[in-house]
């Protein structure tokens, strides 16, 4: 009988420090994945945790990991050539085809950028498949900015607002919450918009409120939820909200569906 809980080995091809506590590992993996899906990543002896896929190509997957606990501390000790253990991918991920020919706005807060990074890269490469493309990225401070090199590249291709909640004097860029920048997008209510919002729960809440005020309708908003997934396959119950399981029915939800889900 096949056992869905057994992880497989995945070799670390390279890694890159994003911030003091965030690191992106590129692992060898040719399992087909979608942006927005996640793997259950583990090290035998240290435990297992859900990690979203920040990017991928045919034979590798990027996992951006924040060092916040026992497992991640152990993972951060690994070197290139060492192995991680993975199961997955799990969850639905973003439906790229459904976003084509839209005026796409992506609003990401903090580590919420990781699950949506592949979507951004995809449409930067296929810019002609969108009517317009705006990006608002928010981080706590300049030190918390993830994927800074890539953000620079995006800036050369599309309109990007990069803001930090609080910056030292040396920070020359924008400051303030992502919500403050929504009105600068000049949204003209219309059927073509799709807005992806990813980030911590409060950020999602206030961002959607602001979007609605600016002419976006509820059915144009897509969000991705973070929960404490454990099994990834609809068994352990940890990710249940209302009658939905984030690991099966999400993590990507239409806002219309998600707004009535109460934890």
């Amino acid at each position, binding site marked *: 009988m*096949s056992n869905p809980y057994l992880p497989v080995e995945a070799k670390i091809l390279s890694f890159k420090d994003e911030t003091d506590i965030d690191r992106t590992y590129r692992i060898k993996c040719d399992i087909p994945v979608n942006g927005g899906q996640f793997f259950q990543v583990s090290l035998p002896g240290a435990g297992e945790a859900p990690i979203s896929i920040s990017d991928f190509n045919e034979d590798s997957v990027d996992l951006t990991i924040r060092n916040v606990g026992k497992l991640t501390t152990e993972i951060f000790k690994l070197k290139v050539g060492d192995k991680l253990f993975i199961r997955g991918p799990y969850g639905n991920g973003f439906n790229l085809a459904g976003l084509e020919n839209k005026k796409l706005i992506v609003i990401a807060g903090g580590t919420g950028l990781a699950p949506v990074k592949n979507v951004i890269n995809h449409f930067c490469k296929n810019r002609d498949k969108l009517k317009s493309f705006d990006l608002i990225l928010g981080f706590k401070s300049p030190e918390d900015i993830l994927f800074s090199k890539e953000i620079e590249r995006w800036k050369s291709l599309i309109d990007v607002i990069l803001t930090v909640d609080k910056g030292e004097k040396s920070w020359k860029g924008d400051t303030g919450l992502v919500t403050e920048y929504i009105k600068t997008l000049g949204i003209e209510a219309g059927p073509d918009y799709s807005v992806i919002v990813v980030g911590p729960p409060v950020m999602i809440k206030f961002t959607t409120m602001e979007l609605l005020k600016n002419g976006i309708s509820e059915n144009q908003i897509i969000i991705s939820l973070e929960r404490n997934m454990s099994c990834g396959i609809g068994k352990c*119950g940890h990710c249940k909200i209302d*009658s939905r399981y984030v690991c*099966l029915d999400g993590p990507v939800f239409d806002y219309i569906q998600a707004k009535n889900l109460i934890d």
Partner: protein
Amino acid sequence: MGYRLKPKYFDDVLSALSKHYDIMAPALMPFETRHSAQEVVGYRKIESLKEIVVDKKTFFSPKEILFPPRETMFYFTDSKIRESEYEEKNKIILLRTCDLNGIERLKNMFLNNGDVKDNYFKRRFESTKFWLIECDDGFDSCFCASMNSNKADSYSTAIKFTEEDILVDSNDNMFSELFKSYGVEEDYKVSFIEKNKLEVKVPLSENINPAVFEHDIWQEYIKRCIACGRCNTSCISCSCFTTHDIIYDDNKRRGERRRVWAGCHLDNFSIMAGGHDYRTKNGERMRFKTMHKIYDYHKRFGKHMCVGCGRCDDVCPEYISFSKCINKLYDIIEKENDK
């Protein structure tokens, strides 16, 4: 077919079957808490009729036979993974209608929630036969009829324990020959309870609205519930678990990944990496459990998760009554609806 068996012949049937099956039934077992050692009725392997207890409800449900409180998922040595072996004997579980329905509820989660099946549950479930114990008039805290769990048909054999004899109704070829050779044919068909002493009114799904989630009714549980999780562990339909890695030997990194029961009333159930917890107040947890038992699960699977076994009421050290909670909720919702 129905049969009547004398106790000593029923014992012969049990001992004949014991060669191939572990027969699990309600029986007295030692139970130690921090404060006392006593005997409670629980599930264990039995060999004879006299061990079976039918005049009391089991304190723990039979779910632990199919879904043990703690289970090795696999072993690892120096990062090499080895699956745990399954060496258990086939089983017969003697259980009541509510619990058989409860096991159907577990089955929905483990086998039918998403495309992937839980192999650990599956192999146990598939090697188990269910023998239904007919209820006379149930126990004080039972409310199976209110939950539509007072009837079942997925049993292999039904049994009625009478003062003198044992009546069985078996359509299972595995057993009917045996009953036939040890008993006499009799026209027995299992009957079900139609009404419990306790009646619980379950609010209609379509009347439940987001306002109910914020209602004051949950406030009282913030203080009263001590988050001991007993209501979860005793519940036949609670199926949540968490996995842990255990190291036996640090040098060689030898150990196992195991899963253990988890419960929505316990601390740490809804905590995320980084520390955010979705439900910190015990009132919120009571609300979460209640809604799952009588609303969310039904939306997903078409049946209520709670089967009305009443064990959560029996075991709560703070005398919190789930059945009362559902009734209170009903009154609030119906009142709202009348407006």
